[in-house]
């Protein structure tokens, strides 16, 4: 999933370089994917009670 996240950022950057205005929507999609990866990594079911 991390590769897809970077792929979205790369596509957005290339589109921005070509002056495409809606490129930022791909960045938002990448950030949402990043939040999903982050939530999976935190593993709330085992860590939340101990670390917070």
């Amino acid at each position, binding site marked *: 999933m*991390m*590769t897809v996240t*970077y792929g979205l950022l790369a596509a957005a*950057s290339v589109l*921005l*370089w070509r002056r495409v205005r809606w490129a930022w929507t791909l*960045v938002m999609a990448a950030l949402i994917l990043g*939040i999903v990866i*982050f939530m999976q990594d935190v593993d709330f079911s085992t860590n939340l009670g101990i670390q917070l």
Partner: protein
Amino acid sequence: MSRDEGLLPDLARVLNFIGLLAMIGVLLGAYVYQFSYRELPCTLCQLQRVAMVAVAFGAAMNVMFGPDPRHYGVCLVSALLGLGVSIRQSLLHINPYFDTTTGLPTSLATSNPPFGQPVMGLHLYVWGVLLFAVVILVVGVVQLFKGQFGAMRSELDRLSGLASVGVGILALLAVAETLTTFAECGFVDCPNDGGWNWWLFG
């Protein structure tokens, strides 16, 4: 010109260009660190880089199209994600007497070693906390000057072709990150051992 119009659009573009170059410099530094110490980035490290690329993208939008609150919004949302991730990673390693594999306290200070080599005394995730906090502060302060959101005068364009070059470098960097991340993780979860184990090369 009223007092709150002190920051004109062309000057704001130059400041955003400097910010873009700074973020590119940090990302390149992380790349050099990765290959010189032969340590592949962990999941949380990768997420901080994602946030850095996204912050740079927000600045790049200001450079390409002129300053706009929505472009600064991309910077702020990205920096908030990066700050959350870097704080999480810093807290994971803040207590050396905590065994992360069992989730229990131990008597050994080596049970929870820091991730990676320190740079100028601080580990990269601590630098991440400072960097994203500074981005949020700077973007917040710069947005106070509403004069930058007016129409740009083309004769005052100080950047000219440099804008495309800067954004082009960002695009190249993002493509390179995609390729190296694919080589490291493929389409599965990235390894978190900090070693030199590329998924693509077995």
